[in-house]
């Protein structure tokens, strides 16, 4: 099995699906000849030509708005938003149009667009090349939200997204675009949506995370294992629809939960997960549910590593949760 990084796995999935389904088209800024600023679409223009790998004008609202029309007509558009920080010009099209097309037409029309976009910190990108806006989209009825942490999942999840009929926001953790490497099967396979992955089983505490922070949480969990703390590490993979059974089962088992994400804490996805677990696992919980997250500030350029919930902060959060006594 070849070893790929996360970017190569995304590229592999796109190529595979474009060969299989002639309705798949890729569009966005610099995705054509250049192959994308991160190279996620490299080589696709050469293989599939300018009608299926389309360099668009610089207008995210136009990219998503026209992709909606393409999907209405039966194509499977896969627009790339160059950085998720630049998704806001398309926010209206995503929120008012994309998410609601099926509902408002009484099921007559659907727009199953799969929006790919790199997100999160770690590339010294300052305020506008680092944000994690996933919660804004989870809040919209009608959208699915996915974020892989590793190459195997990236390919399998993207293939699943391309083969279902709802609109998806596919958030790619750019901090680990190249750093996350792993074996990826050459052929076709799917990773099901709505199923989390238990990366490590444990009994003392559940650590729930996704995207690039899976790698930071792994470091923290490894260190704590040496110190004798047994952590259960969960990679959500699909943020919405959330694998509610997977996370409640784990919370019941351990009775202690730490949620980790890069996005700001207030109204972040961790708040929703915390509320859900509190509603469902109240009597099993032995400690307050803890959130280890980005801070409620804009994303800083110089102090970016301090802003991010990296392994040391995660470890401290876990330790405090494990040692909590009522």
């Amino acid at each position, binding site marked *: 099995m070849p070893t790929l990084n996360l970017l190569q796995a995304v590229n592999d999935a796109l190529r595979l699906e474009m060969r299989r389904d002639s309705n798949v088209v890729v569009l966005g800024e610099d995705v054509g000849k250049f192959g994308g600023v991160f190279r996620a679409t490299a080589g696709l223009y050469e293989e599939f030509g300018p009608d299926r790998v389309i360099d668009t004008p610089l*207008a995210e609202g136009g990219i998503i*708005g026209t992709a909606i029309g393409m999907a209405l007509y039966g194509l499977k558009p896969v627009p790339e938003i160059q950085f998720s920080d630049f998704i806001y010009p398309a926010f*209206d099209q995503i929120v*008012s149009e994309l998410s609601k097309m099926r*509902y408002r037409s009484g099921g*007559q*029309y*659907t727009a199953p667009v799969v929006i790919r976009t790199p997100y999160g910190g770690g590339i010294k990108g300052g305020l506008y090349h680092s944000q994690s806006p996933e919660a804004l989209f989870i809040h919209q009825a009608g959208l699915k939200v996915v974020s892989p942490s590793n190459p195997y999942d990236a390919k399998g999840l993207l293939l699943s997204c391309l083969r279902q009929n*709802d609109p998806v926001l596919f958030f790619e953790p750019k901090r680990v675009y190249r750093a996350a490497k792993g074996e990826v099967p050459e052929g076709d396979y799917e990773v099901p949506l709505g199923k989390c992955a238990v990366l490590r089983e444990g009994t003392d505490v559940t650590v729930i995370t996704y995207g690039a922070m899976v790698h930071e949480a792994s470091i923290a969990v490894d260190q704590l294992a040496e110190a004798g703390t047994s952590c259960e590490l969960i990679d959500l993979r699909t943020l919405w629809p959330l694998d509610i059974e997977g996370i409640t089962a784990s919370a019941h088992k351990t009775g202690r939960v730490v949620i980790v994400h890069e996005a700001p804490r207030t109204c972040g996805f961790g708040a929703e997960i915390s509320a859900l677990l509190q509603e469902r696992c109240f009597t099993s919980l032995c400690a307050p549910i803890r959130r280890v997250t980005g801070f409620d500030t804009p994303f800083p350029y110089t102090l970016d590593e301090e802003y991010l919930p990296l392994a040391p902060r995660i470890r401290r959060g876990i330790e405090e949760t494990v040692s909590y006594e009522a």
Partner: protein
Amino acid sequence: MISPAVSRANGKHHGKAKGRAARPKPKAPALRAVKPGGLSNAQLLEVYRAMMRIRVLDDRMITLQRQGRVGFYGACTGQEAATIASGYALRPGDWVFQALREQGVALMRGLPLVPLIAQVFGNSGDLTKGRQMPSHPASRAVNHVSWSSVIGTQLPHAVGVAWAAKLKGHDTVAMAFLGDGATSSNDFHVAMNFAGVFKVPVVFVCQNNHWSISVPTKNQTASESIAVKATAYGMPGVKVDGNDVEAVYAAVSDAVSRARAGQGATLVECETYRMGAHSTSDDPTRYRDQNEVEEWKKRDPIQRAFKRLQSLGAWDAQRDEELRAELLEEVNAAIKAAEALPAPALDTLFDDVYEHETWNLAEQRAELKAASR
């Protein structure tokens, strides 16, 4: 006959003449070259009938709203020629993106009256399951796409549909309606720009009805016209007397033919007038002069079409009375049938959010059922 009303904007003809005093303002080429109207008497009558049908429907719906039987309504009144003659230029396989006032196009293209009126009532006869405000119909059967209320957002969708048709090698044309207010939206800009760059088979029909609720068109744009904006996007712009059925049809069918022939997009500006209120929630006496309304009523597109048909010897007052009575009867019967239908079933509240129901919706469905027991 109609020529003064029709002008074409393109790069060559719309440089401001001011400041270059020596040069005379170039004459806009008359679109009449296309051939007058291009509608036979029978076709003109068909268009007239569809215009009259929407007028009768609109009048009844506004009455029903006043009686408290429907919640809201956005009428086409005064804009029937621009609306219907545009839609008439399409083939059945073409796609339509309406704004607030163009449900008459769906009606003309085969959406039956009862589901259309059921949409206004928002009940179980509504194809969209009572989910949107009135005047927001959608029908897949006639390629009439759901509109959101958010001004301008449908325009890039029309471009995307046209683009997809082009990529698939189909000869489908997409038509998108918009008001003058919508030309200020960011989606107007991106739609025009993408349509120009990718040369897609889309026709933008702007109904310049002089008002965007209370804001006059001069407060939307400093351009000398809306049609002239097309120049900046590398496509033809045409301004036409929107209350003249034949002029609208000539301009729009020309644009549709260009689109179908692979020559790309066109912006058609129909100069018309919103004779009634913006919607049933509006009181236009607070912001516009009644004299202006009276002036435009003299140019009522339905009266004008009637006179034209009369002059062609194809119609008369007697038959007109009969038609009006027949349509009123048809509309009243449809209202009766539609109003009798029950509200959408409770369960439909949770349908169609996703293709397959998610766990949270299943729980919330159960919660609502338990609470309403």
